[in-house]
């Protein structure tokens, strides 16, 4: 999503978010992520203005004091930025890609099922199966911190069964242009 992203040409405007909209974004995030209201409050205090950074192709980045915290494509789910996720890694369910897939991920590729189902990869067990279209943290074999944020394109059980094609679409990753812009 941010493989080629230049603020000068890809941002169409920045506006202060109205407090009513801000409230509904907060409650959407609380329902979508596993984050405690007080923790979200500590990162994004209610009295602090949220700024909507409107980008090309219906991407919305939200910043607090200029720092991107989360973003959204159309009216889809909210994704934390990777720096946010590094601070609070437990807020999204995690999947893991094997070491061989890391360099492809860092080039912006989507993650194929075999990289997730192989010995070095990880998918949650059946009783915590993920549905399709779930935002996930992308971990990597042998690494502590997430390498990206993605969205499942099929259920985790399906990934195991079919084991072909894209399992998780990469939405942001280490070193992409969102990562490069710590402030907007």
């Amino acid at each position, binding site marked *: 999503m941010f493989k080629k992203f230049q603020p*000068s040409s890809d941002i169409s405007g920045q506006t202060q978010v109205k407090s009513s909209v801000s409230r509904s974004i907060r409650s959407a995030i609380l329902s979508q992520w596993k984050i*405690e209201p*007080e*923790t979200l*409050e*500590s*990162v994004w205090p209610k009295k602090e203005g949220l700024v909507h950074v409107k980008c090309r192709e219906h991407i919305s980045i939200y910043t607090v004091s200029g720092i991107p915290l989360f973003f959204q494509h159309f009216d889809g789910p909210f994704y934390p930025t990777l720096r946010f996720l*590094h*601070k*609070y*890694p437990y807020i999204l369910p995690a999947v893991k890609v*094997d*070491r*061989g897939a*890391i*360099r492809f991920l*860092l080039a912006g590729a989507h993650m194929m099922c075999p990289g997730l189902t*192989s*010995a*070095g990869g990880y998918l949650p067990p059946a009783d915590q199966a993920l549905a399709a279209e779930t935002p996930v943290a992308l971990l990597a*074999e*042998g*690494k*502590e*911190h997430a*390498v990206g944020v993605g969205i499942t394109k099929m259920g985790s059980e399906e990934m195991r069964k079919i084991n072909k094609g894209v399992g998780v679409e990469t939405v942001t990753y*280490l*070193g992409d242009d969102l*990562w*490069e812009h710590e402030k907007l």
Partner: protein
Amino acid sequence: MGKKQKEKKEEASPPEATAVEPSEGPVPEPRQPKTVLYCAVCSFPPEYCEFGSRFTKCKEWLNDAHPDLFSQYYSEDALQSKLGTMTLAAQQKLEKDTAKKEAKADAKADAALKKKMSSQVTIKRIERNKRKHVTTVHGLEAFSIDLKKAAKQFASKFATGASVSKNPQGLDEIVVQGDVAYEIVEMLEEEVGLLKGVPADNIEVIEEKKKKAAAAE
């Protein structure tokens, strides 16, 4: 409102006090963020430096700044176990790729620096009519100066209008109302505010007079 909720919570809490966080008071404390170390060279967490394009420099930095982490990541044992499920052949390919990437990035950085050092900032003083002038500034972006912000800086410094627009060649330039060409040269030389990193030799000033034919009224 807060008070009422608090009271309710306290009432309800005894039976399940152990089920919730026992040590927490009535007002839940936010969880503390994890502190993540980022590489000063490539900005990745150091465990990912091996995938970046400045691996050699990253390692030098880590060895200096965090020797304990350096040995944790790059000791013989660490390199062995890092392989994980990847085959030796795949690891060798990865290392080769990284070296290639590094060489490419170095060459690119060199080229970028050369280009920067040969870029010109052109300041044009344009006569609009006998008394009115505008000043255009072209080429600041080559020195990583944000044009919109620079225009704002000019506007407030000269208390005039300044905007970013495309010149006839389709390139972005800053248009400042008034004759401020030499003031802008001075600002660039003194590196005021955002205007940093333009060598004096790379600045040129051009005067654009109205054509004689057009001027003859």
